[in-house]
């Protein structure tokens, strides 16, 4: 493990305010706790909606929100801190539901096709001491993306979160395609180096 750098003011204040999403999910799973579910909804639904809008769902953005939150309600019991942090877990559900909705729109009839869930699984751990690792990874990733230069982060966010092709990013930012590819490559290399340094 690398030595801890000084934490920025933002991080230290945020750490106190963040509710224990895992505990809230457990209450949803065990006792159908609506207040706990409402707290989760109030935090994540507006972010899922922003994601949907960025992905071009426009007037159907609310459909994605409802699908994801329905899945969170039903599958809260499947969540385990050993699999991922709650925001990562909800991100993977959101990603999969988005793909699923798009696939259903494009499907003409009831065919047997490979399920989205089979293609995008949440990888499970190879070790048993993972829940602590996951929580620290989440914090680590937040710090890592803060270290990326703004221009790389913008390109990464557009590809990762807005589903844009490299060509579309180049056009939007009015920069050559080669520059977009270069920024993405650099950001990915940096992230990989940071991830790998952490695993040692």
């Amino acid at each position, binding site marked *: 493990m690398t030595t801890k750098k000084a934490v920025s003011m933002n991080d230290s204040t945020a750490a106190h305010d963040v509710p224990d999403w895992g505990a809230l999910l*457990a209450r949803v*799973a*065990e006792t159908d706790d*609506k207040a706990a579910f409402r707290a989760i*909804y109030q935090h994540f*639904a*507006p*972010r*899922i*909606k*922003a*994601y949907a*809008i960025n992905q071009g769902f426009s007037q159907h*953005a*609310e459909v994605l*929100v*409802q699908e994801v939150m*329905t899945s969170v309600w039903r*599958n809260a*019991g*499947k969540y*385990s801190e*050993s*699999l*991922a*942090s709650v*925001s*990562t*877990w*909800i*991100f993977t559900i*959101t*990603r999969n539901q988005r793909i699923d909705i798009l*696939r259903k729109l494009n499907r003409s009839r009831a*065919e*047997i*096709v*490979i399920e989205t869930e*089979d*293609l*995008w*699984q949440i*990888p*499970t751990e*190879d070790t048993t001491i993972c829940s602590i690792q*996951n929580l620290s*990874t*989440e914090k680590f*990733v*937040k710090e890592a*993306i803060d270290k990326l230069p703004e221009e790389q982060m913008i390109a990464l*966010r557009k*590809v*990762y*979160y807005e*589903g844009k092709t490299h060509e579309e990013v180049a056009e939007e930012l009015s920069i050559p395609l080669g520059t977009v590819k270069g920024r993405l490559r650099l950001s*990915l*290399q940096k992230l*990989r180096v940071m*991830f790998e340094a952490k695993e040692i």
Partner: protein
Amino acid sequence: MSAYHPDDMTLINYAAGSSSIPESLAVAMHLCFCHDCRQHVKNLNHLGGALLETMKPASTDDDAFESLMASLERQSHNSPAKVKMEPTPGNKVMQHFTNPLLRYLPASLADLPWQNQTKEISKFDLTSLVNVKGFQVALQKISAGAKVPRHTHKGFEYTVILSGGFSDELGVYHEGDFIARDARHKHSPTALQNEDCICLTVLNAPLKFTGWHRVLNPFMAWS
């Protein structure tokens, strides 16, 4: 442990959910074999989670939560109950990543109804299972030591080796390896001597055989 992996861009497109279904199948298949790439995808999922957290929230409809709760209550009467709390995964943790084709193959790899393409090459077509226009997807079986005619690609070809191995002009590949080829490459894969090679191939355009084998083009797609 495989030696050939999808590149960073392929993995991030997969984690972001922006790769096509056939490409994602190839990546998912590789993940079954490769601890390193599973770890990297996990990190990229964390990146997705972190980006979700830093997103500027959009305003939601005031009554959206109440109408969601109402619909959940309606559904709870006629649909499967909520998933109950599962005990801490013990053995389940060992699964890592399930073969994405597991539920769809009628038999084990050895017993699949393979269609012969030539005496030494056979295939089990998966194009309709994946069902994305412009893509051909199949499992391929090459007899030990047999050679696939030299060909090039109009688009790209992803190959993931499920058992055995093969070699071509650029390297030697074994179980779990993920090999990407495009129009720049001409190659003639040869299965390793000791056992049949079975691989998943994803092709986004028909291939072109070169040399006299081009007569095969209309009849045999390497997928």
